[in-house]
């Protein structure tokens, strides 16, 4: 990435530990604009922790987080969203009683700063409703957008996770196992939707299915025990001896 534009997201020496358990140990990460960057590693490697640190849901013990040129290490989670950082959750974190349309409209109202308006009817916010509908349509879930979220099929709920994140118009989108719990046959379809996102959005995704990782990622970072083991192109990672040891080591005796 020499000579390229500055990364849209970067971490420097990010550290976090719970007591004696170190979950992030000097993590340096750089995500350039428009990247499709996969974060892989065995269970407990600290991938979700890293997402939680970057989004501000956890406070790091040390290190810095940059969005563009701006240091956001001390910013509240909602402020980081305002500066273009959005995320989805590994386990659905939706609004069960709201319809998909209401949920996405709410997210757009929050982005536009009109969610504090209590004296005007929501029906008058047609621009927000239209945009919400367009986002849902782009992910092919507009046909079920009037149903309460809790009644949606699981795969549709996973897409709604992404729709809610997109509603904040992110520059960087963090996807924490977007296909978790989705049948293998449908997960490729779900990733087609992610691959179809605008190139203005940089995507960092955690994923366990290697066929998906190697198909969609332009760069891959491998984490082990809170540390970055290696980073490179899919080709480099596929032929890396260390990665093979981590992923295949336990199976050697099988």
């Amino acid at each position, binding site marked *: 990435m020499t000579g390229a534009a500055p990364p849209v997201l970067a971490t420097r020496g990010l550290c976090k530990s719970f007591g004696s358990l170190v979950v992030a140990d000097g993590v340096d990460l750089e995500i350039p604009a428009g990247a499709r960057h996969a974060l892989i590693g065995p269970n407990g490697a600290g991938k979700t922790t890293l997402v939680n640190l970057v989004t501000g849901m956890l406070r790091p013990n040390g290190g810095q987080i940059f969005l563009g040129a701006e240091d956001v290490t001390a910013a509240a989670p909602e402020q980081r*969203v305002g500066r273009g950082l959005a995320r989805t959750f590994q386990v659905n974190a939706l609004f069960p*009683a709201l319809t998909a349309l209401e949920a996405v409209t*709410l997210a757009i109202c929050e982005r536009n700063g009109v*969610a504090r308006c209590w004296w005007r009817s929501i029906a008058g916010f047609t621009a927000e409703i239209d945009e919400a509908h367009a986002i849902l349509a782009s992910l092919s879930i507009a046909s079920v957008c009037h149903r309460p979220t809790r009644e949606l099929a699981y795969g549709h709920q996973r897409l709604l996770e992404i729709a809610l994140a997109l509603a904040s118009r992110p520059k960087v989108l963090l996807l924490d196992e977007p296909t978790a719990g989705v049948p293998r046959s449908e997960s490729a379809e779900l990733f087609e939707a992610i691959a179809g996102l605008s190139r203005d959005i940089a995507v960092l995704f955690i994923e366990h299915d290697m066929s998906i990782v190697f198909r969609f990622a332009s760069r891959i970072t491998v984490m082990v025990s809170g540390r970055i083991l290696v980073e490179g192109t899919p080709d480099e990672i596929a032929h890396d001896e260390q990665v093979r040891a981590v992923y295949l080591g336990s199976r050697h005796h099988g």
Partner: protein
Amino acid sequence: MSTDTMALDARRHIARQIRWRPAEVIFWLATLLPFVLFPTHLVLASQIAITALFALSLDLILGYAGIVSLGHAAFFGLGAYTAGLLSKHGWGEPLSGLVLSALVAGIVGFAASLVIARFRHLALIMITLGMGLLLHEAANSASWLTGGVDGLQGVKMWQVLGQFRFDLYGYTAYSYALAVLFLSFLLVRRIVHSPFGLALRGIRENSVRMTAIGASARAHVRKVYTISAALAGVAGALLTQTTSTVSLETLGFQRSAEVLVMLVLGGAGRLYGGLVGAIIFMSARDQFSGITPLYWYFWIGTLLVAVVLFLPNGILGGLARLRWRRR
């Protein structure tokens, strides 16, 4: 359907949920029936309207934003004492009394919300309970101001709008309370159907996700808690003005608990839940306490258990489900 017509359909779908329904018009027309059918029970009717407003204020925080409170009587009592003290010290004009009571309750509500917005669930129940008890005890010991257990004496209200004297039959009391309830309801209805109202439901459903979509959930909570406290204060002031007394009971734990019972009975988060709950609870108490005053709580307890077991979303929730099934 093309994408454009579907988008238009989306707008229409949201507009439809906000529209006035025939049942709502019938409900408000029915609130006028006591004038004709029960002219001797207008005092009770006015008390029901006041309690309904109190329940409506709780619905805003509990039913919509999911903030549990066991001390909401604190704001009811603050409004009641503000209106009472104003009158005792020479200012008996009812409407400005309401406004000032709302202001006092709202300011204290805002101060409380700075703490409230940081907690959820069990911690919230304990904090609101504690605040309620604290205020009750403070009013009890400050008897030079509040009259203590004897209540505040010497409340004399002027005529409403300089025209209508508070009469013995409760004609003015019910008209006045009903008008204030209706106007407050219009306000709450608008809040609930605004972007802010949508954000409140978002907080109730998943406050973590609210943060993840860039919302400051705490700012929303502080705002709705302040509005709710002000409305509870108006309800309290109405009680003072229509009964010309203020007792310590307005601040009591029992009032906080009862309003919660009414809301759960009617159905929280449904705008009319508190109103229907107040009507049923207050009329039932009036009837049962006539027959078996000792066992009143036995019946209300039975009713509450039955509703929570069989109609977890309250009476209105049960009715909505019935209508949905029949379609």
